């Protein structure tokens, strides 16, 4: 029982020195998470408010798109976080499979619904942006299709986690699926370059001078910081909830065992 409930305060002997395994101890992780969370919350709130102000009020309108260009400030960072979320999922899965790191499995489980949420936000805002600018809610071009595939990869990961009697088996199977699904990330990233799509190519990542005005770049980056902070905040919260649930289950199990022996 104790093996499946990592809730003891003592670090496991033998793994103390490794930096990777330092936070395999849930107690240590929880202490760190509690210390970091207020700062994350502050950064998220400040950058969100500043980003929304600069994005919705203080930034110039586009000479062609008029006010609809402001959808960019919610759409683009959401798409970034959809991909960042999947990268987190894949890295956590790799760490969980290779080093059998117990918190890495938890991190993957916690990250998946958040990433799926950002993917849905990116798809919905993109659709709302597409109607006035492209004249259609949806086109079947490579960027949009590969992001839909990303959403289904997230959903498959979540479904696989919950499909087994033993949670350990679900964790491992879902981790392998997450790693297989990595092939989709470069397809999303480069779809706008490889195929002749309606979706525009990247404006930000060009090395040197970004193809976007600083007045628009500032709110965009502020919103990106806010989304990233929100992602990390939700990730830590979900991991803490997951650990608490495991602890409750372990306590209930030991209590019912004590009741049997009496």
């Amino acid at each position, binding site marked *: 029982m104790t093996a499946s409930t990592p809730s003891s305060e003592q670090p496991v002997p033998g793994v103390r020195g490794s930096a990777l395994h330092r936070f395999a101890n849930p107690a240590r992780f929880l202490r760190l998470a509690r210390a970091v969370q207020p700062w994350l919350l502050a950064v998220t709130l400040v950058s969100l408010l500043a980003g929304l102000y600069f994005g919705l009020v203080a930034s110039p309108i586009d000479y062609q798109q008029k006010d609809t260009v402001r959808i960019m400030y919610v759409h683009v960072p959401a798409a970034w976080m959809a991909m960042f979320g999947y990268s987190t999922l894949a890295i956590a899965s790799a760490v969980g*499979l290779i080093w059998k790191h117990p918190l890495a499995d938890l991190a993957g489980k916690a990250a998946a619904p958040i990433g799926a949420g950002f993917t849905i936000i990116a798809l919905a805002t993109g659709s709302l942006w597409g109607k006035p600018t492209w004249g259609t809610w949806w086109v079947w071009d490579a960027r949009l*299709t590969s992001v839909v*595939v990303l959403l*289904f*990869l997230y*959903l*498959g990961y979540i*479904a*696989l986690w919950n*499909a*087994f*009697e033993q949670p350990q*088996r679900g964790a*491992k*199977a879902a981790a*392998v*699926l997450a*790693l*297989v*699904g990595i*092939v*989709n990330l470069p*397809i999303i990233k480069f779809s706008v370059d490889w195929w002749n799509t309606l979706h525009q190519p990247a404006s930000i990542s060009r090395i040197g001078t970004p193809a976007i005005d600083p007045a628009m770049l500032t709110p965009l980056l502020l919103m990106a910081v806010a989304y990233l902070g929100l992602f990390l905040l939700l990730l830590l919260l979900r991991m803490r909830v997951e650990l608490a649930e495991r602890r409750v289950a372990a306590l209930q199990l030991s209590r019912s065992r004590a009741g049997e022996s009496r």
Partner: protein
Amino acid sequence: MSGFFAILGRDLRLARVESGGALLAVQFFALGILLFPLGLGPEPGMLSRLGGGLLAVMALLATLLALDRLFQQDHDDGTLDLLRTSPAPLWSVVLGKALAHWLLTGGPMIVTAPLLGVLLQMSWPAIGGLCAALALGTPTLSLVGAIGASLTIGARRGGVLLALLVLPLYIPVLIFMSGTVTAAETGLAFGAHVSILGAILLLSLVLAPWASAVALRQIGE
């Protein structure tokens, strides 16, 4: 390598013994195609335009049919435990099973596709492109499907879950299979599409047995 051939021969023999069961996938493939002229109406121009895409989609769905039995039976009767502890590398076992699966599903589909193409009024160049696309695409479907099959062993509602996991991964194959047919039909060079299908096949030939073996090994732990 002997493990690979032993598994391949065993799975083919098992399929022959289970009389008729082996060719269920291709029957589903043909029957599914016959539904479309009845559902969409028999107008020849439309059918010949849609034919390649319909056959490619049906190939994806028919491949799924036999996948959930790829490892499940061996897991239930304990064969998989023996295979896992045998000296033959696990990836060669997966490769043998995937090849047997392809010979029983993808292979018959390639043979029946021209007949179904004629029924759908497709042109001969389009049918040729379709056969080339299926020949390079369906082995990938079996290999990637093997990953999904090994992940869903023992899962609740494993069959539906398998389809949900595998179909998103099939999408690139579908795109380039129907791209090949469209290009062949309009007289364009379809070499690029075929090359990409071949590249995907080579990549999954290397990576899929390994990923599936990793998944199989997780069950024992």
